[in-house]
């Protein structure tokens, strides 16, 4: 099924895309409480950054939001759906339709062309080739890499790979984009370009986004910045 296109972000129609209530999670091996009653409200079209030290639980939080990991207690509501209450198949289908991922290591499949990589989420949503390729091309154009459509990832630079990842994360117009250290493997100049592109395209698509980062400079591209500390989110700046 094709997801309905989202209108551009307008502050007047804000509602909570993501709502996290009293989230708790303890690391199984170490036994440490990594998330301890964490609360978060993310409005539609809002772009926030979460900072924190290594091991603070940033990636764990992202995985729980995406349904890739389960909390010990608490609730994660994505567009009103309790992600934790879904079985694995249902949370996978939710992820397929409503979440876009951007990873630090890009995770672009090396044996698919750039176009095929970007079209992959649409293929999983069962769009016909005649529909998915023009849409993937459109997103490659928005990310400034349309000329690379038929190239293979091994021929591309880190910045170009992350542009592909951004296009892939947004091509199916998800409600929520989760970006885990998307500039961690890039030089400062390229990182700035990528963050600008990410912000611009997230806002253009009407999606909400959570950016996980160590870098304050990167975090400043977000609308609000939160600090993950002692298992809870504290506002750092807006």
């Amino acid at each position, binding site marked *: *099924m094709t997801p309905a296109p989202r209108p551009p972000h307008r502050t007047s129609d804000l509602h909570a895309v993501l709502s996290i209530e009293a989230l708790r999670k303890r690391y199984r091996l170490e036994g440490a409480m990594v998330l301890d009653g964490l609360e978060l409200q993310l409005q539609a079209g809002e772009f926030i950054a979460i900072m924190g030290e290594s091991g603070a639980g940033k*990636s764990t939080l992202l*995985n729980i939001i*995406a349904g*890739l*990991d389960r909390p010990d207690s608490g609730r994660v509501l994505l567009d009103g759906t309790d992600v934790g209450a879904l079985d*694995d*198949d249902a949370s*996978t*289908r939710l*992820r*397929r*339709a409503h979440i876009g*991922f951007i*990873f630090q*290591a890009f*995770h672009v*499949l090396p*044996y*698919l062309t750039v176009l095929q990589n970007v079209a*992959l*989420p649409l*293929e*999983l*949503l*069962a769009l016909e080739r005649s529909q998915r390729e023009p849409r993937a091309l459109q997103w490659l154009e928005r990310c400034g890499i349309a000329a690379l459509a038929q190239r293979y990832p091994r021929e591309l630079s880190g910045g170009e790979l992350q542009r592909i990842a951004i296009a892939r994360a947004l091509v199916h117009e998800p409600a929520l984009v989760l970006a885990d250290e998307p500039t961690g493997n890039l030089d400062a100049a390229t990182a700035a370009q990528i963050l600008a592109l990410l912000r611009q395209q997230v806002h253009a698509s009407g999606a909400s986004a959570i950016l996980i980062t160590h870098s304050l400079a990167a975090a400043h591209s977000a609308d609000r910045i939160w600090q993950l500390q002692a298992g809870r989110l504290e506002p750092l700046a807006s």
Partner: protein
Amino acid sequence: MNAWRGAWVAWRVLSLAQWREQPLRVLTTVLAISLGVALGAAVYLINTASLMQFDQATRRLLGDADIIVRGPVSGFDESVFVTLAQDRDVSVASPVLELDLALAQADHPTLKVVALDPLRALALQPQLALPLGADITALFAHDAIVLSRAAASALGLQRSGVLSVVVDGTVRSLRVIDVLPADAYPQALGIMDIGAAQWSLARLGKLNRVDLRLRPGVDPDSVRARLGLALPAGVFALTPQIERGRAASVTRAYRVNLDVLALVALLTGAFLIFSTQWLSVLRRRVALGLLRALGVTRHELRLALLAESAASGLAGSVLGVLLGTGTALLMLRYLGADLGSPQYAALGAALRVHAVPLLCFLLIGTGAACAGGALPALQAARRAPALALKAGDAEQDLSRLRTTLPGLALSALGALLAWLPPTGGLPIAGYLSIAALLFGSVLLVPAVTRRALAAIPASGRLIFDTALAQLRGSPASVSVSLSSIIVSFSLMVAMAIMVHSFRASFELWLTKLLPSDLQLRLGEGDDSAALTASMQARIGAVPGVARVEFRRLRPILLQAGRAPVTLIARDMAGQRAADALPLLREAPPPAGAPLPPAWISEAVQDLYGLRPGQLLELPLDGRISRFFIAGIWRDYVRSAGAIVIRRQDYLSSTGDASANYASIWRQPDSSESAIEAQIRAALGVGAALEIISSPELRERSLMAFDRAFVITYALEAVAVLIGLLGVSVAAS
């Protein structure tokens, strides 16, 4: 979106990755499966061609009979025929004498002859009797014989030719009055009139088969049971199906062994699929994690990975079926259908390809590949995608597998299964034991690997220690690679050890059984030729002969559905059984009334469930003679079983003083060739008499052994190839 769509996308992405990144691995696994399937298909097709040819021949011999009454080759009194023919439920009865006739012709020791009543045979065996021609009275002449086309061409005879046969120590001539058309009977056969054969072949008053057609509406099973009760000992009323199945039953163990060897090759291919998929899943864990993160469900991923194995299996199976069919075609055309076993020598067997069995081979090959890929697929689908996307998780899921206890349990089970008796005459438990031991060993590899790696001390050399650390850090991957090598190599080594130790044992066995200087044989079995008492005396009187031991071999039927057992009555005067036979076990004589001893071969023990010390009842010349089982001996030659008794006991049970084998010891100053020449001159039976030195017979026997194992060697070569492929997969 249904699961197939997601699985299709995942399969396309993953297969593309597999093919791009490891084309050699993919090709290797496809080739391994194809070799296993090719072996199975080729063995099956050749077996089928051979058995169908035998079946066709047997159907023509048996014709439309409802019941076959069969006795020992030496025959039963023809009054049995009269009784049967007069039975209220019998419509037609046809007397038959079926013999392997000794020929006085070099290179062709025997010819199968069926002697029947042509007029009755027209009703019961029309396919055999009709081609005899309009005037069948010519067949009534005492020396007339009709040959099948195969027999005529093998013997180099035509119509009006003369066939020299050996009967009771003398050479007699039979006139070839006709040659049947090639399609009348596919194998070598001679046909005679029953009366003429009884006269000419010294079987007056004797039959060994009666074919019966029953009146309409009569239940054959109840008649068969009723008739069976009134028959003499050693004579059975059989269904035509049992008769037709005899050729198949004689070669069944050999065929099953070949099938199992092919199956083992296929299983090795499946294990290669397992190790390839396992390692490949490890290598592609990031791609798998990404697909899960992007929305491929566990079920879809599992399906995709299974489909990947199935695709390799299907490609390998298609290739294997084509290869197997081609191999069978070439072997049937250029090497015959015997697969190294003389019992299989079906003349003119042709390839018959049917779609269903070949489809089964496609399914078996694909199924084996899917079975090999199932565990890696399950593991990959179970793996948490968040972990898979991180570096360094490769070992976590693998190390969770607890394999030591199952490995020990399987090994113990394998050791127990090895002691179980055969099932239906086949060593099914033995095959399962090998499988259990093999997989048990494989499951123990991770524990052994971990301990072995932990025991290796650091060397202080950077490269070595880094490599060691790398191996210690990935014990599961190392175990999978090692297992692949173990399975591949154990197959090679096991087959090599089996064949070579079997050959060495066979050689020792021959030495034990052939202690004399010369071996003499007159005809195979006892059908027409035998050494009479006077001939035996003449052999003993030949100058230079120090000692002679005579043996009488004859097939006897112990059970209706089984192949005949070979009875060996041998001179054992002054010898201990342990000196004369390769004994495995002995039993003391039972208390009470003394019974003569009999020593049964292992095959008789297994097939008939007999044990040392038990009573053994043998049907000899229509009467039951009682023996006690004095021991078990090893016989590598007669898979249907053999029983040794003392010749004096045989003589007192049957009155038959003839023999057909002899072992001859010469005096120190005599020559073998001179003794041979004098024996030939003294007996005057031409080429029907075979005399050979014991070393030469041992040599010939070993050559026959090697020939019988040609197919096994071929299978071993393929196993070596698959093993090497396995090593290359594991090492790449």
